[in-house]
């Protein structure tokens, strides 16, 4: 018997060997089964409570957990290939259809009463260019934007990514919860091995929940639901402020001396200001790294200090932008500087940290963990 035949035989007995050796003690027990049932029962109770109470929003927690780290987001960033407004104009497309490839078997949810307006999980990348993606591992459609939040009256570069194989064109539309809906729009898609995508500029005329429905061969293929906010003084939230600060720390020239790659994050003590002008008060944690292979990174230089970021809304590109940063570098003057520069509430929070060095250290380590993870993620790609 030659080596090829012996190898084939080895493969044929893999299951038996594995079951009788490395997996011999591995069984799905009644206890595990019960744990799963208990979790389901618990989620049902919570769902019932939420539905009676403040609505569906809390249900998303489970979806967010389940939907994190999905693989597709590593594929692309939003680039300059966006064309056209959402209604009735063609997108850039050059791809071909998937030919004889079989369709994927997973059946996406359809708009039933129960799920039709359930918000899709949303994740914002922790560093670099801002990109938020809506969808999860189990959803067949994903919607990417170059913004942390979606606001009514703004125009966004967006990309739609669909798992599966499509003809050269498909149809889609946006529907608003209160009834406004676009006409069905034909779009060309770029098809690669297992997914298709198209770019669009998208404009939401009013706040509320919007559902994007994608149709394949005139049948609903999948949909996602996003929350479009009304721009106000309160709409600039901690999430958006954190992403903005991270972007600023990673790219602004004032940190050039620290070297590249560089990532930072912020513990936010407070935000105030008007719709157009904001101030972010917080503690910045910035690190530059020695980049190694396989996602391993080591810190090169570190900067930890209280900061105030002055932020302005740019009406031309519908984005908040950091205009100026004040960094408090002298530790001996922290109390005095923060009292002078921070809002009263932000100062109270910062003061409590400075009075308790252990908590301050813990906070810095926590933020540093995020920064390290961003560096590792970037090194991996």
């Amino acid at each position: 018997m030659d080596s090829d035949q012996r190898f084939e035989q080895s493969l044929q007995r893999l299951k038996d060997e594995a079951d009788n050796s490395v997996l011999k003690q591995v069984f799905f027990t009644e206890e595990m089964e019960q744990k799963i049932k208990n979790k389901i029962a618990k989620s049902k109770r919570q769902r019932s409570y939420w539905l009676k109470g403040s609505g569906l929003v809390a249900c998303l927690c489970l979806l967010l957990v389940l939907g994190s780290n999905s693989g597709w987001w590593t594929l692309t960033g939003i680039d300059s290939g966006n064309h056209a407004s959402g209604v009735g104009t063609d997108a850039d497309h050059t791809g071909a259809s998937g030919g004889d490839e079989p369709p994927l078997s997973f059946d996406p949810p359809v708009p039933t009463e129960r799920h039709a307006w359930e918000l899709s999980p949303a994740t914002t990348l922790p560093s670099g260019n801002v990109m938020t993606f809506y969808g999860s591992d189990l959803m067949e459609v994903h919607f990417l934007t170059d913004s942390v939040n979606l606001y009514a009256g703004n125009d966004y570069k967006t990309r739609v990514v669909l798992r599966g194989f499509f003809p050269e064109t498909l149809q889609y539309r946006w529907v608003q919860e209160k009834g406004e809906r676009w006409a069905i729009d034909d779009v060309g898609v770029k098809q690669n091995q297992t997914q298709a995508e198209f770019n669009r500029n998208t404009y939401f005329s009013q706040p509320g929940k919007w559902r994007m429905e994608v149709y394949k061969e005139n049948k609903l293929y999948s949909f996602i639901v996003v929350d479009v906010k009304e721009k106000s003084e309160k709409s600039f939230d901690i999430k958006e402020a954190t992403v903005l600060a991270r972007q600023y720390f990673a790219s602004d020239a004032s940190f050039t001396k620290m070297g590249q790659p560089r990532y930072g994050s912020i513990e936010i003590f407070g935000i105030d200001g008007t719709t157009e002008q904001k101030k972010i008060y917080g503690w910045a944690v910035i690190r530059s790294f020695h980049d190694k292979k396989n996602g391993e990174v080591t810190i090169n230089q570190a900067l930890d200090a209280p900061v105030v970021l002055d932020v302005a809304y740019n009406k031309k590109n519908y984005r908040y932008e950091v205009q100026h940063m004040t960094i408090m570098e002298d530790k001996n003057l922290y109390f005095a500087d923060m009292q002078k520069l921070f809002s009263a509430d932000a100062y109270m929070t910062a003061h409590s940290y400075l009075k308790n060095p252990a908590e301050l250290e813990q906070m810095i380590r926590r933020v540093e963990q995020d920064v390290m993870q961003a560096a590792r993620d970037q090194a991996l790609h």
Partner: protein
Amino acid sequence: MENVHRLQRTETADFDQVMRENGTKVLRLVTLFVKNQAVAEDITQEVFLKVYKNLPYFRGESSIQTWVYKIAVNESKSYLRSWSFRNIFAKDEIEQESGQNVEDEVIGKANRETVAELVLKMTPKYRQVIALRYYADLSIKEVAVALGESEGSVRTRLHRARAQLKKLVEKEGL
């Protein structure tokens, strides 16, 4: 179990059946993927929570087992990309491999490693496709569905995985 119409009207009883019939299969497959039983148990729990949530929408275009495996693959991929894997378990794995004591080495020489043990030494990407094809006994088409890839890329990956495993098998003298 493959009766789609019955599954479309799924209730708790259907889910229980899916869980019982596939529980050990999924747990063992995931254990091969992640090489850690405790982690595999957690992942399997998440897999069946997703199965429960999505079972009403399963249309039966593949077998229920392939569909469940697809969820298991996705959950395992998430774990293998996670911070805890890269920072804790991946490190442990290397230390375990290089940390053999003299006694282990002697026993190891006396008892050749099984093919299953060699599969565990493969890189995750190749281990996954070998496990799906030869442990779970899926067809190329089913592996493609489970991995969310085209059949062509599965064939390529499988070819490379087999080459890697063959080297290990020959080195071990199996």
